[in-house]
């Protein structure tokens, strides 16, 4: 790995070196290295780019890292990663993509991540997207996440895209069986003339299934964001989506909620709020001695942490 790649890796995983334990590291369109562990097997797909990750039933307190780095300009790839998580697991998966584009051609990574979470398993999935480089070529990422939660499975997904991604369409589709729970926390910041689109589609099929989606975003300068969520309550279930956006400069944000109840015991709520930073928040921090721009920074950092 060179210095640029190391920086990308650190930005998306917090790690300085190749991860410990089970991992797969993809750099510039090919598998750079992978390692399976006793309970976690990583297998390269034969028919298309990507990997299968098999986590043995009963695996507890283990984690897998699967970072993707792109540092040469003009590279476009579509990768399929499938995660098969056995019953009664409690595991963490850390994914993420960093693109450095110093050239004039667009670089693009599209990842389709599918999660099959078996009965009674608990999964934490963390995903970070980051872009750098001052070339005129765009940094484009289109992550798709497909989630299948079986009975009483629990998944927490944390996704963040704070800097440097020019164009993104982020799609998450989930189906939940009885007693399954999905929690999603999204943090997004766009600036310049970036565009970010988020689509959530959740089918609450099982009795007592529940989904809780919270998206917090900041749109600066001339950037645009579109947030679409569709939650279908097909059984006695609960669904809650919340979209909270701070808008600055000439940015624009639109939130399109759709909740559909197909069962009398489906309880679905959608909340959306878009607005600029409240003047009284800036004033309060200024009375503590911060300048206006320091106050703004504190408010945004807090909002997105």
């Amino acid at each position: 790995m060179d210095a640029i790649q190391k920086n990308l890796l650190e930005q998306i995983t917090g790690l300085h070196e190749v991860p410990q334990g089970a991992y797969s590291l993809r750099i510039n369109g090919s598998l750079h290295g992978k390692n399976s562990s006793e309970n976690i097997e990583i297998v390269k797909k034969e028919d298309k780019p990507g990997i299968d990750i098999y986590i043995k039933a009963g695996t507890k307190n283990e984690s897998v890292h699967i970072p993707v780095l792109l540092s040469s300009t003009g590279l476009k790839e579509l990768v399929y990663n499938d995660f098969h998580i056995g019953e009664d697991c409690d595991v963490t998966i850390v994914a993420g993509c960093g693109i450095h584009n110093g050239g004039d051609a667009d670089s693009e990574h599209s990842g389709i991540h599918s999660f099959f979470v078996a009965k009674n398993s608990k999964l934490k999935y963390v995903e970070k997207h980051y872009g750098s480089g001052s070339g005129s070529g765009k940094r484009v990422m289109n992550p798709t996440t497909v989630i299948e939660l079986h009975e009483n499975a629990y998944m927490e997904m944390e996704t963040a895209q704070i800097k440097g991604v020019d164009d993104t369409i982020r799609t998450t589709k989930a189906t939940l069986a009885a007693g399954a729970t999905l929690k999603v926390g999204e943090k997004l910041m766009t600036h310049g003339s970036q565009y970010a689109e988020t689509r959530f589609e959740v089918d609450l099929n099982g009795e007592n299934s529940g989904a809780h989606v919270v998206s917090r975003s900041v749109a600066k300068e001339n950037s645009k964001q579109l947030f679409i969520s569709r939650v279908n309550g097909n059984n006695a279930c609960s669904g809650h989506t919340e979209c909270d956006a701070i808008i600055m400069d000439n940015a624009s944000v639109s939130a399109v909620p759709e909740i559909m109840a197909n069962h009398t015991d489906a309880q679905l709520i959608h909340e959306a709020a878009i607005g600029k930073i409240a003047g009284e928040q800036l004033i309060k921090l200024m009375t503590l001695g911060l300048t206006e721009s320091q106050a703004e920074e504190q408010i945004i950092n807090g909002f997105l942490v």
Partner: protein
Amino acid sequence: MLKLENITYKVENKLILDNISLSIDERFVAITGPNGSGKSTLAKIIAGIIPATSGKIYLDGEDITNLSITERANKGISFAFQQPVRFKGITVMDLISLASGKKLTVAEACEYLSEVGLCARDYIKREVDGSLSGGELKRIEIAMINARGTKLSVFDEPEAGIDLWSFQNLIKVFEKMYEKNRGSILIISHQERILDIADKILVLKAGKIDKIGTKAEIMPALLGIDSGCRYVKEG
């Protein structure tokens, strides 16, 4: 010492503060008066949140009339709002640290919270958002002023919503704050027990100074206002 000279504040020809002159050098100075008499407006003018239409403000002899909120804060003016502000994602710990101007340890921040009667460990990581009650926010507001420790601290109706706690504790907080900072404390209040600790009391009425003097001079007359209705409820 803070000195106000002929402060007037007008909004669309409505006179909200009319020629207020006042100096604050004592330990505790209290401002009282009916709802809408201009108390909060005066506090905001002192903190620089709104500019006076005319008049001058001096802090230790320096003309601060045209200084910004930030500059006044850094020169030693603190202001606890009547209605505390909520923040999504900013924690109690963050605010206390920002107020103190340095990175605090958890133990140090807890100390400030304990002083205002909050069980520190339960609060330190909480977000200062809609999940906190009005009374909790008021106490965090006081803790922030305490963490700043400046030469002038202005409190706008600090007693509001502290029902679960006692006035006696609130007064102790002010007394301790003075012992520590030796800075003047200006308190806007309707509460007799708070006015009772003031070295000087100012009564505002319709934007004018109605009375100003020591507790002994003001209290008897104040207790006679609007016979039967001793104190106007908070406003």
